[in-house]
Every structure is written in C-alpha cells, then in structure tokens.
C-alpha cells in the first residue's frame, strides 16, 4: 500500500510540474520582426475562425504545401472554428493557459489589445514593412485591424464592403424606392409591411447583424470617433448621437422592419428569406457575392436584386462612400514562437497570397492585384467590386469589435428588447450607460 501511495504522489507531482512547464514561457520581443538564425522546418499551427472550405484556408493550404516542397518537414496545421463566439472562447481559454499557437485569428478587440500590451503578439506594422509588402495593402484594410492608438498587430486576409441588398420588384410592389436617408427606413418598412412584405431579413441569433444597425446613425451623426469615446465612457447613449440611434432602433422595431421572431433565426434563415424573395432587404457584406451575384442565386429573384450603400442623414459628417468596410478577422503572430521559420513562411505566403485570393473572385486586402470576375457572375458582381475603388477615407467600425466584452454582450441583449418593444428607449439608454460605466474602466485603463 505504501508503495502505491508513493507512486501516486510522484505521479501527481510530475503532472503538476509538467503542467507548470507547459504553461510557462515568457514572450519574446514583439518588435523583433527579423529573427536571425537557421530555418528549421517543423509543423506550425494557425488557430483560425474562417469557413473550412473558404478561399483563405484553401489558398493557405496550397501555399503551405508549396513551401513544404522546398522545406521538407514543414507543415501548416489549420485549426478552424468558423463559429465566431465559440472561436473567441477557444482563443481566450488558450491565451489564459498561455498556449496560443504560432498564428491565431483575432479582431482588434480590447482583449487582443491586452495581449499586445503584454508583448504576446508580433508588431504587424513592422513585420509587413520588413517583408516589403506593407505598401501593397489598402489603407482601409490595415486601419480596420488597428487598435485605438494606431498600432497594428493583425494582418488582414480579406477586404469586404457591406451593403444593403434589396429586391427591386418587392420595393416596387410596395411603392417605395431606395431610401435617401437612414431616417427614411422606418416609413419604408411600414409601407412594405402594408404590402404584406417582410422588410428586412436579419440573422438575429448571432446578434452581430443587429448590432451593425446601432452603429449607423452615430457614424453619420458624429463620425467614427463616437464609438471610440462611447466605449471608454467619454460619450454616452444619452448624447445626441446616442439618442438618435436609440430612437431610430426603437422606430425600426415599431415599424416591424425585421421578420417576426428574428431573434431566434439564424444566418441561413435570413439569407434564404431574402434569396427566396420573401424579404425586401438584407444587410450583408461582399463575402456573400457568390450567393447573391452569380447564377447560383434563385432565378426567380436574380434580375430583381440590387444593392445600395449605407444611406446618409441630414447634416451627416461622413460621406455616402463611407460605410462598413471590414477586412475580416485578422491574423496575429505569436511573439513567443516567432522564429526564422515562421518569418520565412510568412514572407513566402504573404507575397503570393493576394494573386491567389483575387483569382477566386474575392477582393484582396492589397491593391497590387486585380480581382477576377467569375464566369457565372451577374453584372452586380462587378458593380459591387468597383465600389471598393471609390471608397472614402473613414470607415464605420462594427461595435462588437470595439466595446468591452461585457458591455457588448449587454448591448446585444438589450437591442433585441428595444427593437421588440419590450423596453423603452429611456430604459435602454439607462441600462447601457450604466453598463459602460461599470465595465469600461476595467478594459480601458
């Protein structure tokens, strides 16, 4: 028995020691972007949140295989969790355990900024410059990845424009036209409802699509800085721009703009509603071009689909060509595991990636390549891509990447209640201002 106990004790101590060793390890210098030494091929991992059969993953797989031909022993292990909330939880847990892989996806969230502050991410600004690719990137694509202080720690792999897609035939049936102002939308919804048409199809289950709407009025009224101030408690929902969006959201709800029971409907539900001609509008980005502007689209509605960009408002401080133009979730490089191999592979991949990506018909985050229009595209495809050429200098940031996570969660919950008419604009304003006051100081010290 004594021997048994001794063996168990030794095993327990060994396990603890191993755990401690695995969890340790200090971060290297994040600004050292050109590590010297021999390139020793090994398997590296990229923890990412992108569709498993999407262009980014397919291209990077191919590039990794090409790189491995000259560097036997190299492999890129792609670990994807496309569902964003699950991915974020995975990322945060791995970060807490100090077990982040060589490459990982993240938005420019307050949590990511904390990681950067602790020196756990390589300075992407310096990295891209050292690889001589920095100037190829669209400024907007890089700006989307920057933290508030202008620092850059994530590399973009996409560039998207978000539009409001609409069905011309349904609009005509209801006797309405493309809104000139954001303020026209509630009345438009009422007219569509009166004609028996669902005005806007929305994925309520994932919460971020509704949160896009709350960003629109303040972006027009007070510019991109409003959310930067709001998240730190320097501006509030009680302010003029804040009240404008709160009342507008309540008006959208009163006018029954979204499909009934939208909060329990998912991404594909919303897409199906629009593409089957049941809903008049659908707010989504160019990542859905293959399903909205090619012959894959239902022939019954194919010729009726068009899009408009975010309407302005009277006295808007941002222009019609400025709206949400995200460059997707960014890729961060773990400074702890950054070595000559990772550096060399990134140089190889980032140089070749834009051409491969543009060939798939997607907008590259760089300007040095021309996007190929797929053979099965409708004229709308080209029109959507060309909009990128006339983009203005300011961009509306999605609020879910800006607010601290607790406030963001509360905002997503309260927005549904506001739009459903379960709470008043006053209640919403008070709850959210209190939430920011309570949670923001911990994140934005």
């Amino acid at each position, binding site marked *: *028995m004594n021997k*048994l106990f001794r063996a*168990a004790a030794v095993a327990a101590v060994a396990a603890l020691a191993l755990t401690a060793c695995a969890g340790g390890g200090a971060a290297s210098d994040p600004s050292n972007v050109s590590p010297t030494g021999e390139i020793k091929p090994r398997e590296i991992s990229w923890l990412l949140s992108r569709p498993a059969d999407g262009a980014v993953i397919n291209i990077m797989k191919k590039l990794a295989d090409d790189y491995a031909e000259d560097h036997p022993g190299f492999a890129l292990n792609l670990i994807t969790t496309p569902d964003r*909330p699950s991915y*974020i*939880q995975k990322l*945060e*847990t791995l*970060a*807490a355990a100090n077990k982040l892989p060589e490459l990982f996806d993240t938005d420019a969230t307050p*949590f990511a900024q*904390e*990681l950067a502050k*602790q020196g*756990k991410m390589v300075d992407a600004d310096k990295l891209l410059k050292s690889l001589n690719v920095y100037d190829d990137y669209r400024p907007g694509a890089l700006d989307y990845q920057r933290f508030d202080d202008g620092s850059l720690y994530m590399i973009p792999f996409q560039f998207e424009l978000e539009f409001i897609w609409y069905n011309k035939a349904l609009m005509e049936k209801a006797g309405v036209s493309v809104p000139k102002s954001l303020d026209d939308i509630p009345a438009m919804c009422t007219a569509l409802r009166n004609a028996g048409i*669902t005005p806007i199809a929305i994925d*309520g*289950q994932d*919460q971020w699509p509704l949160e896009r709407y709350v960003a629109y009025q303040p972006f027009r009224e007070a510019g991109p800085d409003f959310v930067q101030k709001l998240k730190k408690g320097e501006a509030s929902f009680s302010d003029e721009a804040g009240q404008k969006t709160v009342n507008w959201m309540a008006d959208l709800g009163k006018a029954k703009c979204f*499909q*009934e*029971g*939208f*909060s*329990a*409907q998912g991404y594909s539900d919303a897409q199906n*509603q629009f593409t089957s001609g049941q809903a008049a509008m659908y707010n989504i980005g160019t990542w859905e071009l293959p399903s909205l502007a090619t012959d894959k689209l239902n022939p019954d509605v194919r010729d009726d689909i068009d899009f408009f960009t975010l309407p302005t408002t009277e006295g808007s401080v941002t222009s019609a060509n400025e709206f949400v133009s995200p460059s997707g979730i960014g890729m961060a490089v773990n400074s702890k595991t950054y070595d000559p191999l990772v550096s060399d592979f990134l140089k190889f991949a980032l140089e070749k990636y834009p051409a491969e990506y543009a060939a798939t018909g997607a907008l590259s985050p760089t300007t040095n390549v021309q996007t190929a229009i797929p053979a099965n595209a409708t004229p709308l495809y080209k029109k959507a891509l060309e909009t990128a050429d006339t983009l203005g200098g300011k961009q509306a940031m999605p609020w879910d990447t800006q607010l601290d*996570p*607790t406030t963001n*969660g509360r905002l997503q*919950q*309260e927005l*549904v*209640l506001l739009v*459903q008419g*379960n*709470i008043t604009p006053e209640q919403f304003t008070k709850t959210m201002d209190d939430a920011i006051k309570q*949670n923001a100081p*911990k994140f934005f010290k």
Partner: protein
Amino acid sequence: MLPNRSRTSVLVFLLPPLLLYCAAVLFPILQSLFLSFFSWNGISEMEFVGLANYVRMLTADDIFWRSFFNALLYLAICLVLQLGGALVVASLLTSLRRGRELIKTLYLLPAVISTVAIAFLFVRIYSIDPVGLLNQLLHWIGLGSFERAWLSDVNTVLAAVSAPEGWRFTGLYMLIIYAALIAVPKELEEAAVLDGASKWTLFTKIRFPYIRPVWITTTIMATTYGLRGFDIPYLMTNGGPGQSSELLTTYMYKTAFTSTDFGYASTISVFIVIECLVAVGLILFMLKRKADS
C-alpha cells in the same frame, strides 16, 4: 460483513475512482472557490479582491438574480415534465399487456439524441416565420390567436426552452420508476384490492410508498440535472431575448468565456454548487419528514 482481507481489497479498488473523483470534481470546485476571491481576465495578473465578487453578485447584479429566478422556474417546469410525466407513463405502462417494449423505447428515444439536434429541432418547432409545427397545430385546431414566435416572446421563451429538456429525460426517469413499480409485491396489491382499495388508494398507499427510495433518487437526479441545465437553452436562445431565458449556468459561462471575468464566473459557479447541495438537502429533509409522519 466482509472478512478483513476482502475489505482491504474493496478499499484498494475503491481508491482509484476516489482519486479520479477528487481530481475531476473536488479539485475544480476548490479551485473555483479560490478563484472567486480574485479579479482575473485570464491573461493579466490576478488581483485579490476578497469578498467583493460575492458582494457584487448578491447586491449589485440584476442579471444574476434574474438568472437565478429563471433557473428556479426552469427547474420547476423540468421537474413537472420529467418526474410527473415519468410517473404517469410508468404507471400506465404497468397496466399495459402488450407493446410495452415499443412504448418504452419510443419514450427513451429523446434521451439518446444529441442535445444540439434537439435544440435545432425545437427551434424549428417553435418558429413562426416559416411556420413551425407548434404554430401550425394551433392554427389547425382553431387556436390561431395563440400563434406566436415562442422563442422571441419574453413571456413564453423560458417555458419554451424548458420543455425540450423535460421531454428529453421523461423516458429515462420513466424507465427507472417503471422498474421500481413492477418490483412492488403483487400480494400486497392483491390484499389491498381484496380490502376494497380503489386504484388511487392503491397507488398512494401501496405503490408510491414502496417506490419512495427510488423516487427520492430520481428527484435528486432530476433536480441536480435541472439546476445544471445549460446546453439546450444556450443553443436555442443564448439566454435571450434580453435575459428572459438566461440561467445561472449560461450566465456563468458567458461571464467566464465571453466577458473573460474568470473570478466573477467562479463566484457564480460556487453559488451553483451551494445551490445544488441545498436543493438535495431540502429534498432529503422533506421526503424523510413525510416518511416519518
């Protein structure tokens, strides 16, 4: 009584599972208790805050209390469906002469279906646009005025997310109770029938008292499972709309993995552990008192 040598063997064989239990259950509980005295976002330094998390939870967190009362209501609905439903079905099964196995299997089926599938299935059943099964049924039977978006209506969502959980485990508890019911000695029942006992008297005076130990076990199981209910509400509504279907478990999970407030999430988890222990204690106390009386 086992001879000494056998008792030692039993103890030796009990030790590994006991150690495993300590490592997998007791250690995380103690770790949560420890973490609950800290403020920690997972990546920065842990900051000792004493009882501040407990004070915040009990006095200044409206979502916590909302989740707590939601969890109690969720539990009540689950218990009625699971235990009440199980008892009724098991009792009816004992009077059935043919087709018992088929009915048992059918009732047990939901318990082996994955939670994710159940959640998606019920999202479709409750849907209003496109019209789901429930709203369609209401329409057919002339109760069209009751049609609604069950998962988006703050007044119905909690019951709507509780029902699948209750439905799912009714078969499991039915099997346990059925096994207990068929073990009731027939001579006791026959004697009671000869004495002129009605079916109700037979059930309340003979059958139920006889299966009381099994009933206590199933009640404890169903209660602790209900208090830990998480996956179906999380998958169906993510606690919404607003906090209408937020349970302590979903709130704890979000606090840890969305808000990255691991200290406060640990405080909520400690509360859940205490809540489960109190619930089990209360059940044992009430049932024992009833048995004594």
